[in-house]
């Protein structure tokens, strides 16, 4: 069975997310790198990922900046802005009142119209040359942007835990996301910070 290349961090949230993504079956030849629940990707790894994107890889970057210190957030946000042109706003913790009024679910438009569970907080995202692919209420929380032959899909609301919880809709979203990004050469699985 083919495997995705997965980058995760040695904390519970990232590992839980990686477990979720591992439930997916990679297409025979996949050119997708999954960053599962990450919050501390350093600049050099980010630059290498950008190079790979330019060469045809799709980087699906699931952020766990919802559960980090302010300095950690600022550092990661700067790297994403400088390397990928993605602007992150401060995470929004979803209070019980907000969940009641705005709802429990993230609305995806790409790769297909679907709803999936929110995960405690969302990271609003903006990128001038990107397509917003998911919203929480009116807040964009996921986007995709092409770089050369590949690109970046940034997830400001986590999908990995939903995959691990066997949520059908999350499975369909990510499966279609991978399919829409197209196949290329196969890479090995890694598990380390960059």
């Amino acid at each position, binding site marked *: 069975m083919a495997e995705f290349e997965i980058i995760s961090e040695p904390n519970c949230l990232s590992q839980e997310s990686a477990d979720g993504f591992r439930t997916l079956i990679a297409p025979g030849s996949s050119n997708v790198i999954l960053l599962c629940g990450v919050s501390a990707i350093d600049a050099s790894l980010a630059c290498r990922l950008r190079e790979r994107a330019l060469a045809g890889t799709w980087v699906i970057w699931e952020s766990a900046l919802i559960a980090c210190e302010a300095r950690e957030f600022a550092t990661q946000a700067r790297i994403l802005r400088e390397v990928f042109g993605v602007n992150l706003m401060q995470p929004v913790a979803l209070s019980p009142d907000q*969940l*009641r*009024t705005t*709802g*429990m*679910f993230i609305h995806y438009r790409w790769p297909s119209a*679907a*709803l*999936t*569970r929110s995960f405690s907080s969302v990271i609003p995202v903006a990128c001038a040359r990107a397509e917003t692919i998911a919203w929480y209420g009116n807040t964009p929380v996921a986007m995709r942007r092409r770089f050369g032959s590949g690109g970046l899909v940034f997830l400001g609301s986590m999908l990995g835990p939903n995959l691990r919880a066997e*949520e*059908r*809709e999350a499975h369909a979203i990510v499966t279609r996301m991978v399919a829409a990004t197209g196949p290329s050469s196969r890479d090995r699985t890694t598990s380390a910070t960059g």
Partner: protein
Amino acid sequence: MKKSIGDNIFPKGVSFENGLQLLKRAGYDGVELWLGEREWFQIGSTDSQMREMRQKIEDAGLRVSNISNSLDWKENVSARDASKREAAFRHIQRQIEAAQIFNTDAILIVAGLVTSDAPYNEVYKRTLDSLKKLAPDAAAAKVKIGVENCCSEQKFLLSPREFNAFLSDVDSPWVGIHLDVGNIHDTGFAEQWIEILGPKITRVHLKDVHTHRGRCGNQSVYTNIFLGDNNWRAIRDAFTKVGYDGWLIAEMEAKYTYAPDQQIYDTAAAMNRVISGNL
């Protein structure tokens, strides 16, 4: 989505025909017929009588959303007493026949009653066997059996995960869940039941529930839509999430001391808000 409500909420003294007219005026699309509840629909009702009822329903501009029964509480497929189990099979098979006569494709049953005398694992096995036996009849009639989640009353299949696993054990596309979003009480969350059971939902019962109240003497935990503790936005979104676009059937306790027909109108208005998502 379409709105329906049971014929068991027709105000006392109102005839079947006038009850249908009331539903039509209130804006319902259909009616849920309860076998064994009102005098016009009993186990002894003939096919001919049912066809007459169907004509009246269609003349009123309505359809039948599903056929339910109030007999399972006394004659259940999980009963130790073989005669009660056989009676349950008979009335369920009559429900399936009625569904065909009334041109609907779903029935509601309550399957599995756990008591101090009838222990859980025994009820599980017997209920599973019974549904596997009924599934071919449902398949042949193209009528889905919706097993209702009466969690608190049945003390059986108390979580969405267990209910889902049970239906997987039955392993028939003709046996699913008739999901009642009010019956979950404080043991869980209706939207999570919807999310987990999604494709297996045959029909939905709508009502609200006071989860903090618990069972207290004569006080009911159930109440009208929007007056209880259900998260209606989450419930509505969950329907969208799983792609459920079928019948919503209000199952209300008759609460209005005065102007009982007003409850029917008020419930229809609340259901419109649920359907439109204007919450």
